[in-house]
């Protein structure tokens, strides 16, 4: 009966009645790539946690610093898993500013985010978009577009920014990262950020409960749980820390005295 089922290459159903985390994230960052339903969720979340836009900015700022760090470390190809709606300050912009030929592959499961990314990146030969669910690394690394863009025998900078907290324990996020580890060459890096209630507990929990009603429930994980996701990777100094504290470019950028307000961990690991 397989011929009665939706072919797996077809985009999933688009339901504009339900918020999409990619578009909600865009709203947090001041973008307008979103719809009323997305803005509703975002505004309710901001009411519960007024710092959310700042946190998202810090998250985005970590992405920028991490990519710059990886570039400095010699990484010349990037895989951004859970790339969402590409607003300003995208990975390929940062990468191509220093090496216009370095390939960047964006991966998302949201068909609208993917279609938008394609439109943005049209004509850019060094950036590619792949629609795939990160919970299936074998399918991801088997994707012909990805394999054409990346040389998996060479180190890759893998970015999983604000995405693993949408993978519930039942989907085995550590297993997902573990299978990813197996696919990438030694010398590759994994940079990730992850929501936590370790800092601003009450507000973070309230946002977690809000997201629980959405199509993408949020799993807040402790520092230990986030560390466990890096199994096999060698931690890069300073390890897993609150978002702004990871290698800030200036004292003023670090928000050192109130880093825990940012309710998110960041870290980079080396695949040895």
């Amino acid at each position, binding site marked *: 009966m397989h011929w009665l089922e939706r072919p797996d290459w077809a*985009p999933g159903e688009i339901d504009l009645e339900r918020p999409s985390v990619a578009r909600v994230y865009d709203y947090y960052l001041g973008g*307008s790539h979103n719809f009323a339903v997305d803005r509703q969720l975002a505004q309710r979340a901001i009411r519960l946690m007024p710092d959310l836009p700042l946190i*998202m900015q810090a998250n985005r700022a970590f992405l920028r610093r991490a990519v710059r760090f990886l570039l400095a470390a010699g990484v010349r190809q990037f895989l951004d898993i859970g790339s969402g709606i590409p607003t300003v300050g995208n990975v390929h*912009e940062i990468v191509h500013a220093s090496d216009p030929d370095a390939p960047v592959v964006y991966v998302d499961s949201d*068909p609208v985010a993917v279609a938008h990314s394609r439109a943005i990146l049209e004509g850019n030969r060094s950036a590619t978009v792949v629609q795939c669910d990160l919970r299936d690394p074998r399918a991801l690394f088997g994707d012909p577009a990805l394999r054409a863009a990346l040389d998996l025998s060479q180190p890759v900078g893998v970015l999983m920014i604000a995405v693993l907290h949408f993978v519930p324990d039942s989907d085995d996020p550590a297993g997902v990262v573990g299978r990813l580890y197996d696919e990438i060459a030694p010398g590759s890096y994994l940079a990730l950020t992850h929501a936590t209630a370790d800092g601003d507990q009450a507000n973070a929990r309230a946002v977690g409960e809000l997201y629980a009603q959405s199509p993408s429930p949020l799993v807040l994980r402790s520092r230990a749980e986030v560390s466990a996701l890096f199994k096999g990777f060698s931690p890069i100094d300073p390890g897993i820390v609150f978002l702004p504290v990871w290698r800030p470019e200036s004292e003023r950028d670090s928000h050192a005295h109130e880093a825990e307000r940012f309710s998110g961990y960041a870290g980079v690991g080396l695949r040895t």
Partner: protein
Amino acid sequence: MTSPPDRAVSTGNAVSTGNAVATGNAVATGNAVSTRTAGPARNTALAQAGPGSLRFAGSWARAVAGTSYVPMEIAEVEQFLLTLTEKLAAALLAEPFRSCPGYEVGTALVDAHFTGVETLGRTVSVLGERLLAELGLETRGDGEPDELRSRLAVLQGSFAEGFADALRSRTLDEQEAIRHAVLVTREEAERALRASEARFRAVFADAAIGIGIGDLAGNILDVNQSLSDMLGYPVEELCRHSATDFVHPDDAPEVWQLYAQLVAGERDHFRSEKRYFRKDGAVLWTDLTVSLIRDDSGEPRYMVAMFEDISERHSLQNRLHHQAMHDPLTHLPNRSLFFERLSRIFAEAPEHTRLGLCYLDLDGFKVVNDALGHDIGDQLLVTVADRLKACAADGGHLLARMGGDEFVVLVEDSQGTGQVVAVADRLLRCLDQPIRIGGHDLAVSASIGVVEREIRTSSSADVMQAADITLYWAKSDGKSRWALFDSERNDREVARYTLSAALPSALDRGEFEVEYQPLVRFSDGSLVGVEALVRWRHPTYGRLSPDRFISLAEETGLIVPLGRWVLREACREARRWQDMSPDRRFFVSVNLAVRQSRDPALVSDVTAILEETGLEPGRLQLELTESAIMGTADEALAVLHTLSDKGIRIAIDDFGTGYSNLAYLRHLPVHSLKIAGSFIEGLRSSEDGDPVDRQIVGALVSLAHALDLDVTAEGVETFVQAERLKVIGCDAGQGWLFARPAPASAIDALLAPGFTFPIRPEYP
């Protein structure tokens, strides 16, 4: 983006208005004045702008920090804002004054993704509060600062306009972009869906298998041409039906259970073989697969059923099955079908179920086949089968042909032996009328073994074995009859069989022994000889007398080696007795079975044993039965003559029980007659002795004496008998009155000189 509107005129006005000296048509003048007067001041300001702009850019950066997401670190932000600050500073002092740089700065902020509304508010505030001060333009006392403040206000307004304009454009662009992305995605999804549907349609329409789609209530929503063709209904008509309209009475119950589970969402598929009635009433066999289609939330919505027409395969299977289960000659069920049915009863019927079997075999069918040929034989079997079938069908019983001329009727759910015997009677009767085939009237009879029992006491193998044995009984009891299985008779036969099987090794293991019973002369009570009697010390059954095993030994042929062994034993003992009393006339009498008497090696065996033991031939007597002697062919008679000529005595055992040709008797080399114990019994008691027996015995004795034969009476148990036999003139007697059979050693004492047996009671 729209081009930035220039506010030069209004700015000029504002500046002039701000000037106290300005009058009518003062616009140009005011401008000229201000330009003139402002010239050096501006230059001074520009010269000082470096550090002032830097300071303001810092204030500005702090004011907007965190209000928008921009992909820059704070230092980068400050650098970016510094260029904008300098642009604004230049605009403030420019002659002629133009407002468009303010607009451009607003646009530039949005382009750098300073999209937060707070960025706008805080920028306007910081411009108003800090710009002039940081640039060092507030210290002038000539009224110019007022004009600068007016220009700043104009720039602030223009900035806000540019910011809002750019933000609106950006917002609209992004909204359009995201909607476009949605559109593209939808189109792709729809294209995929259309492709999928087209493929589905193609498969649906052109498939050789029948496909039907129904809702959960069973309503048929759509069917393809193949299904319509298979069932013989037009598509539209089928769509007015429900799946449940196609129940077939012989559907396996699980088909509809599976269907119910599917509808309930408890299973996603099932597969089964199912029959359908075509519209024309014919039966369609299908290999049916039904799948459940769920919606996105997992709720059952539709069913898709696929039908493969397997009618032909089925009819072929049925034909092959029928062929495998039926006899091609009579078309009756064959033994396979019969055993299948029988096994099923034993496997499935309740344990108190009874069943009956009539195992039938034609009498003398081989003769018909041999005499009239196989064609006639086959035709006879067909006719017999027809008659039996009619008879069995009356009672609703299964008739099968087991092979050859054997048939069996199975009485399921038997009500008892009577019912099954009645069936057997009817079967026999239906063959009473001769069968006419090819001009021959063939009289046919049959024998039937009948078995009837409760199934829990038995097994199919037991029942068949019992039927087989019982059929054999019916045959051996005289044919043209039924016999009913009798477990006691069976037990006896089983015991016989067991003994017969044990006989050969018993001889090897020395389980036989010989006993001797004295023969006593009536005239003086002296011992004239002994009869050797063989015994079997069976390890399980104990001591067995010859009547238990001699006939078995005859059947199996073991009698020859056994007889030889007894002869050798007896001769060995007799030789011993010969040595003990060499002058006494004394013989040992040994029985010869019929089979032994016809054994070509008999003479050489006897001769060899006599030589081997050294026994005088006159001391050996061989006992043969009447039938053994009378029925002998000439060669066998010659053997007796040879033995007799050697001096060996020949006696006829059990005389009077067969049909002796008395006239012939005189030509036989016989020395003695032994009168069967049954005649002697009639001489038992003094009161009621049978006078006829007495006369017979008298006649026999007379006859024997006339032929010069001596006579021994067997079974002498009383003095009365002994007395009478003595009176009649019988020569010798043997029986419990004198002695029971005893081991050889017991005979030694009887050979002592002067020993005699009492012939009459010795009353004190």
